[in-house]
């Protein structure tokens, strides 16, 4: 009897000690840098390896885009360094080179030759049959589950949102879902100019909301310019920022050098918007801004010259009464 009482008291004492330790260590653990307890279940279970899985599923989406014809780790992947689902959106710098149709090369032996009859052996894109007729390119929907999974696993990967939104909007005409994806992307990546660019395209091309498109594109430009911390930003009007940018010598911050395409696209789209609205001086300003990061500045210069000549023609009637 006495020994049982002792055992029970000892057990209670141990429990109290355990709870006390847990209470003492709990706050310390929460403040620990590597703590994952505040994250969602995927974060807790997978940790940083979720990004690895997210990349794999993004590649899986590209594989689905090619109906299974995709290089393995043993094949020549030079034509697939940038996923084609991303490259085909026109919003990504493609690093692809080489033959995407024949990455397998000629058959190496009879086993290889025979085996090629049993897996996809021809390069196709899911929207290949009808690039113009959207109604029959709905097969592209098949890439969506993997893009969704990739976004869930790595919510900070901007490209997943832009690519998903592009295909939802342009091929499946599911504009509402595309918009929702982009908004989710902005929640997870608040200063993403890529997402804002895609959002602007959605507003302009699908909603025909030019004002909305202008606003988000200008915000995108603001974020891009703020990659260079030496540029004073704050709440200055965008015209001022762009004017400063145009006036400064081209001296890009490393983050800006890595992604000139986004600035070029934002600027050129804004230029087009202004041109369509008849606001040629603004259009020229945007083209000047784009020229600083463009790989084909002469093309943009030609457009600037054209706009200048149009502007000149428009001004001439105004000057006529003076003479």
């Amino acid at each position: 009897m006495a020994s049982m009482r002792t055992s029970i008291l000892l057990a209670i004492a141990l429990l109290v000690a355990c709870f006390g330790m847990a209470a003492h260590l709990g706050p310390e653990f929460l403040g620990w840098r590597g703590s994952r307890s505040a994250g969602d279940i995927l974060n807790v279970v997978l940790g940083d390896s979720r990004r690895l899985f997210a990349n794999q599923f993004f590649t899986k989406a590209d594989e689905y885009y090619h109906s299974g014809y995709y290089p393995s780790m043993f094949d020549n992947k030079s034509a697939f360094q940038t996923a084609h689902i991303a490259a085909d959106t026109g919003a990504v710098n493609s690093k692809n080179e080489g033959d995407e149709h024949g990455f397998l090369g000629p058959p190496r032996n009879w086993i290889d030759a025979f085996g090629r009859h049993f897996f996809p052996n021809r390069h196709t894109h899911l929207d290949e049959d009808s690039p113009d007729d959207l109604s029959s390119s709905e097969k592209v929907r098949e890439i969506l589950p993997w893009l969704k999974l990739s976004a869930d696993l790595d919510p900070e990967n901007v490209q997943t949102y832009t690519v998903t939104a592009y295909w939802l909007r342009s091929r499946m005409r599911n504009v509402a879902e595309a918009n929702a994806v982009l908004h989710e992307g902005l929640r997870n990546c608040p200063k993403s100019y890529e997402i804002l660019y895609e959002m602007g395209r959605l507003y302009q091309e699908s909603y025909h909301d030019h004002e909305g498109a202008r606003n988000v594109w200008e915000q995108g430009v603001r974020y891009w310019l703020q990659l260079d911390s030496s540029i004073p930003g704050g709440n200055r009007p965008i015209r001022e920022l762009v004017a400063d940018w145009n006036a400064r010598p081209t001296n890009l911050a490393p983050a800006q050098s890595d992604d000139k395409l986004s600035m070029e696209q934002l600027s050129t789209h804004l230029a087009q918007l202004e041109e369509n609205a008849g606001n040629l001086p603004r259009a020229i300003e945007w083209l000047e801004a784009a020229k600083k990061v463009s790989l084909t500045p002469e093309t943009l210069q030609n457009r600037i010259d054209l706009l200048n000549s149009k502007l000149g023609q428009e001004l001439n009637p105004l000057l006529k009464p003076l003479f």
Partner: protein
Amino acid sequence: MKNAFAVAGVVVKELYRRKDFYVLFIVTVLICLVMASVNIYDDAHIARYLKEISLLLIWISSLVIAITTTARQIPAERENRTLIPLLAKPLTRTELVAGKFLGCWLACGLTLLCFYVFFGALAASREHHWPLQNYVQAALMHWCLLGIVVSMSLLGSLVFAAPSSNSTICAVVVMGILFVARHLDQVAITRPEPFRTVAFVFYYALPHLEFYDLRDLIIHDWPPVDWKYVSLAVLYGAFYMAVFIIGACLVFRRKAVN
């Protein structure tokens, strides 16, 4: 051969009276139904991911059934001493091995039939069409692959000490072949001698199970494979089945009954 079929009948009975198949089938169905109920951007017509997941589960389940069922056949007969009254009948050891192979292979075929019918129904619910020729071809090739795996596992059950070690080794070998065998020659070229020669020997000697994996063609709606290549693949598989079964017969002849 009638004795072999008699033994095969007992093996099939054993499979459908054990719980393995039912558990795996129900788990497959449940997972697929859960996956099918996921809302993906409000689009109810997306089918390929579902086909991929269900085919993956079918392949895993079928390989588990094939390997574990076969791995325990003869060791269980010896351990349970049911081998003694069996071999006391006018039944040769070769007939026993052949019967075990036929039984396991037939049992795998029946499970495949159930799985593929479910798969067909699931795919049709999204795609609203049934490429019957493709499915028949895929199931046939899958069954052929299981024949090779069963014969390999049967030989392993006579070579390795325990069913668990045999199952593990067979599973690892099969997975390795499915993932890597196609590229072994590419790996061999990058290696120095003597590894290069060894890798090439494995490349040509191993059964290339990846021939029988038509999942990508099914998932992505490619046209069916020319039947002459399917026939050649079946003959190729039959050759390896014969090699493994003959090996099993030769090993079993020298084994003590108890």
